[in-house]
């Protein structure tokens, strides 16, 4: 879509674009190019000299069990976050779409965790589940569950999944609710007249019609689990115990900042960029096609 009526000026459009472009170049393209450049370099232990090593950093990464483990951890984590985040919010949105009384109140009470910073969400849940003083820990012990995420990798993973899902529910809920409300009532009424019960109507009409929203949210949630959960993890497990919750983004940070391995960390950045590009391309492709109707 283009405008028919346009203004003419030899310099004004460039001046208007200048701030945005300048910031994009200085803080996006320059660093991204540098990341790509460093990823082909190997620095000596003091960071004084570096030499060009080609794909060696990448080879080292894919030969490293820790890095492959981090891939697996990330996959498990993002599948769990996306699945539970979508399932719970779809259930809540379907129910909220049904009720007449109190719908606005429910909505208000469900959306505000969006405002909570991931790091704070992490702190809150870490406190609830704290091994020696947590409220939830206390009740779990009563039921005979030995809860200590500081030393148990699976429990640490569960903790970061719960905290990440909790924070993301409100976002998914809003999109599902908007999706549900845009489904024509006449379709559902017709099915009801034909004798289809609520469960049947949901699975044969509502759920398929909702698939564009679901697909969009699936990609958004995976991206969220990949990148935005950094705060959750840094505030709770910090990748531990023994790297059991060290997702890719956390490893980039850890190797680059804490372990000062510039080449390895940059190579990881480059791989992450490729993953984001793939996810974004996937999203656009399918959103264009509207999935299926």
């Amino acid at each position: 879509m283009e405008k028919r009526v346009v203004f003419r000026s030899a310099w004004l459009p460039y001046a208007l674009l200048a701030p945005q472009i300048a910031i994009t170049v200085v803080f996006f393209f320059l660093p991204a190019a540098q990341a790509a450049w460093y990823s082909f370099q190997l620095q000596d232990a003091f960071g004084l000299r570096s030499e060009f090593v080609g794909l060696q950093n990448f080879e080292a990464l894919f030969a490293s069990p820790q890095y492959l483990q981090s891939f697996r951890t990330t996959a498990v984590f993002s599948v769990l976050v996306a699945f539970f985040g979508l399932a719970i919010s779809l259930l809540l949105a379907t129910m909220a779409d049904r009720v007449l009384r109190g719908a606005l109140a429910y909505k208000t009470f469900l959306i505000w965790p969006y405002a909570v910073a991931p790091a704070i969400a992490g702190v809150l849940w870490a406190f609830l589940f704290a091994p020696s003083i947590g409220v939830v820990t206390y009740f779990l012990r009563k039921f005979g569950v030995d809860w200590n995420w500081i030393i148990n990798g699976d429990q640490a993973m569960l903790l970061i999944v719960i905290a990440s899902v909790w924070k993301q529910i409100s976002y998914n809920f809003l999109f599902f609710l908007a999706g549900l409300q845009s489904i024509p009532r006449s379709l559902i009424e017709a099915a009801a007249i034909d004798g289809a019960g609520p469960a049947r109507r949901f699975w044969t009409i509502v759920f398929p019609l909702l698939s564009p929203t679901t697909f969009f949210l699936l990609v958004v949630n995976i991206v969220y689990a990949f990148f935005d959960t950094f705060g959750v993890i840094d505030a709770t497990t910090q990748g531990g115990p023994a790297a059991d919750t060290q997702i890719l983004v956390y490893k980039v940070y850890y190797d680059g900042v804490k372990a000062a391995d510039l080449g390895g960390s940059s190579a990881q950045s480059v791989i992450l960029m490729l993953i984001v590009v793939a996810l974004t391309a996937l999203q656009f492709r399918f959103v264009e096609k509207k999935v299926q109707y």
Partner: protein
Amino acid sequence: MVENRPWLNFLSHAVLIAGVLMVAFPIYVTFVASTLTLEQILQMPMPLMPGDQFFVNYSQVLRAGTVGGSQASMAHMMSNSLVMALGIALGKIAISIIASFAIVYFRFPLRNFFFWMIFVTLMLPVEVRIIPTFKVVSDLGMLNSYVGLTLPLIASATATFLFRQFFLTVPEELAEAARIDGAGPMRFFIDVLLPLSKTSIAALFVIQFIYGWNQYLWPLLITSDESMYTAVIGIKRMITGGDAANEWQLVMAAAMLALLPPAAVVVLMQKWFVRGLVETEK
């Protein structure tokens, strides 16, 4: 509603109430913990009714952080967060709205090139280019400064898109009329386009304010000076040791304070918030 099914209505309300409780539970416990003494929190289980230390804890945190650990004042850190959130939200809106104006209302060489340049940044979140971005900011001498906190985060593809979408729906006749009346492009922008964009600006502001306030990794990297900590970082710094070593009542009071401003923005500006969210992501 298609038909009346009392048991299903009951179930719906039950599920929703369970959902609300699940969402509210951590915040309730946090609030309770922020009104207790440390001794009360450390007993197993901690009380689940608010105590009487509300003013003691909150005034301590606002004035001087924790007693034993980080002593950065929460009031100061919240003002840093406010500067950062406002800087990012207003900065993004300002540079994006003029950039979209140029892209929609002008024809010039390299227009598509610039558009794609902005578009690609969608794909490069801060998290994947941490170290080189840090180096750039450090070379520019922006560590521990408000400029360093805000400037690298204000380039925004989403905001540029939103305004572009909106400008494309503005009737052609308005620009035509402005041109016939002899108004220049900037005059048209200020007198016609800006007033029309009010709702988009409000919606975007809510989303970007929350985004800015909740930033974590970036301020963590570039602030080493306590006086530049933001509220979210401050809380992380208050947690120093194991379960019993932290002054939990103060950490929890700080957490309540840090989540209050963005939560208030969401609840009070719900209409704009929902609009902004659904529109920026489309």
